[in-house]
């Protein structure tokens, strides 16, 4: 016995799906809206350029946090992106169905699944504890972030290179170009769009990661003067301020969140709308 005719079932399903989609997407819009609405008022020249003061002060800024985020991201990218790319190249071009290759692949996939907090604890144990005599250091924070970049970039690299058609490789072979050159200059060249997208998205991803920095770079109210010290970051700044009772602190946290969202979502939008579609096989 049917409750609803087939046609009505179809309409009902369609409506349900639309409703669910709207319900699920709305937090995104809500968050973005709220962050812009509450965060924008906090933005002023002072905000971006002053050091971080006591939480109750409304004249403190987030300058050091901005610089800190970029410094640590930069260092993380410095070693994370190349390592990721080379591993990705290996998996795409040189790995054959051997146990060795599957070990590498499993390791890369596993690394992608390691919770960011654990990466931070690892960096804390390895660097802060063992190498740095328990002194906070931004290097450890960068290290943890870099570790998170590696699997993301490796995956993007491998996928982008896999879709390069074999005809191109064969043409290069026929021209007598040695494999290393063939791979590096030609295939990577064609895959570069996908690789760059992957790197950008990885950058956006680590910009939002807080846990790896908590026990490595800790925090610092002042402008960075070197990398082997505690360093401020936007993420940890928000975290520190989130639980403060002072409205000034909360207001500043919103301002920081706005900047963070702008960077992270901005990169995502640019990559996904403008760069990716050219390199992806259709959605």
């Amino acid at each position, binding site marked *: 016995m049917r409750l609803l005719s087939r046609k009505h*079932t*179809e309409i009902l399903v*369609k409506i*349900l*799906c*639309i409703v*669910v*989609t709207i*319900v*699920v*997407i709305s*937090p*995104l819009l809500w*968050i973005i809206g*709220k962050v812009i609405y509450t965060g924008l008022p906090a933005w002023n020249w002072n905000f971006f350029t002053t050091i971080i003061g006591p939480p109750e002060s409304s004249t403190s800024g987030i300058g050091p946090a901005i610089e800190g985020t970029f410094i640590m991201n930069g260092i993380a990218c410095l070693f994370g992106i*190349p*390592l990721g790319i*080379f*591993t990705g190249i*290996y*998996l795409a071009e*040189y790995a054959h169905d051997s146990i060795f290759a599957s*070990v*590498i692949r*499993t*390791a890369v996939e*596993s*690394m*992608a*699944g*390691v*919770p*960011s*907090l*654990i*990466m931070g*604890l690892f960096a804390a*144990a*390895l660097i802060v504890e*063992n190498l740095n005599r328990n002194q906070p250091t931004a290097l450890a924070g960068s290290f943890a972030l870099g570790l998170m970049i*590696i699997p993301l970039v490796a995956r993007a690299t491998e996928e982008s290179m896999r879709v390069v058609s074999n005809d191109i490789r064969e043409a290069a072979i026929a021209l007598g170009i*040695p*494999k*290393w050159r063939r*791979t*590096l200059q030609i295939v990577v060249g064609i895959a570069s769009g996908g690789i760059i997208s992957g790197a950008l998205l990885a950058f956006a991803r680590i910009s*939002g990661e*807080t*846990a790896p920095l908590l026990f490595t770079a800790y925090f610092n109210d002042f402008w960075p003067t070197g990398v082997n010290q505690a360093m401020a970051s936007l*993420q940890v700044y*928000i*975290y520190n301020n*989130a639980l403060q009772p002072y409205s000034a602190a909360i207001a500043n*946290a*919103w301002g920081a969140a706005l900047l963070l969202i702008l960077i992270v*979502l901005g990169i*995502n939008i640019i990559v*996904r*709308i403008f760069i990716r579609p050219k390199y992806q096989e259709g*959605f």
Partner: protein
Amino acid sequence: MTTTTRKTSHFFNLQDTLFKYFLIACSVLVVALLIAIFYFLYQDALPAISYNGWNILTGMTWNTNLGVFGALPVILGTLATGGIATLIAIPLSLAIAIFYTEYTPHRFRLPLRVFIDLLAAVPSIVYGFWALQVLLPIAKINVMLPLVTYLGFIPIFSGPAEGASIFLAIIILTIMVIPIITAISIEILAKTPIALKEGMTSLGATKWETVRHVGLPFARLGIFAGVILGLGRALGETMAVTLIIGNTFNWPFHSVSLFSTGDTVTSWITNEFPEAVGLDAASLFELALILLIITLAVNLIARTIINRVSKGRFS
């Protein structure tokens, strides 16, 4: 045609070999780093492993002064919040995936896809901060307190409801897990062979009927993998949860209520670590190691399934 210097193939072989071994070295380094994660966590956890024995998993109290380190409440907190959030996320994600593949006109597909991916891209600290500042007060007044008033006799809905709660953690985790499951489901559903869909259509099936009888059965395994991946994410989530879960050992042994404050492994470690020394710190490392093993196991299961599916085996 220009003449090129003819280097001996021997030279090229050397370059090629060097490059190849360089790549291998990089890859091995990555494996080494992964192993190092285990190693260093293990090293720092060592004192606690023998000291705690099974108590770390079964003990219900964590008291630094008494030297008792039982983490059962937070382990349950992690499993419950992650598990329930994932369960709730499944039908929601499927609805979106079906909507995307069957009902969305082609020109709206990119925007929808971007929205889903942006949901996944929002930094977890922003999720947590927003949940704390915006969602918590609203949920407390409009959802939690009324439920306590009317359904409070049921233990899991009993008061008091302060706001920070397991409940809120579940909500925020659900939002974070949905894009993961949705993305994989879309990818898999899109791979349904057109011939089969046309077979259904030619029999007069509606789009939903086609999805239900051909699309979903085909995508079953891949969707399952996506669910497992989403679960892994939820289990490892830290920042979004820490700010709104209350950070106490209340749940579930003090109070079963979803509205009570509680903790997960990740938020517990985050809060305890700064001041922890000695066995306390070691036990935290032990907890971290346990979490690492669980999330990696979950991840590997998901990836194995995905590999099977992308090789064309759908069952």
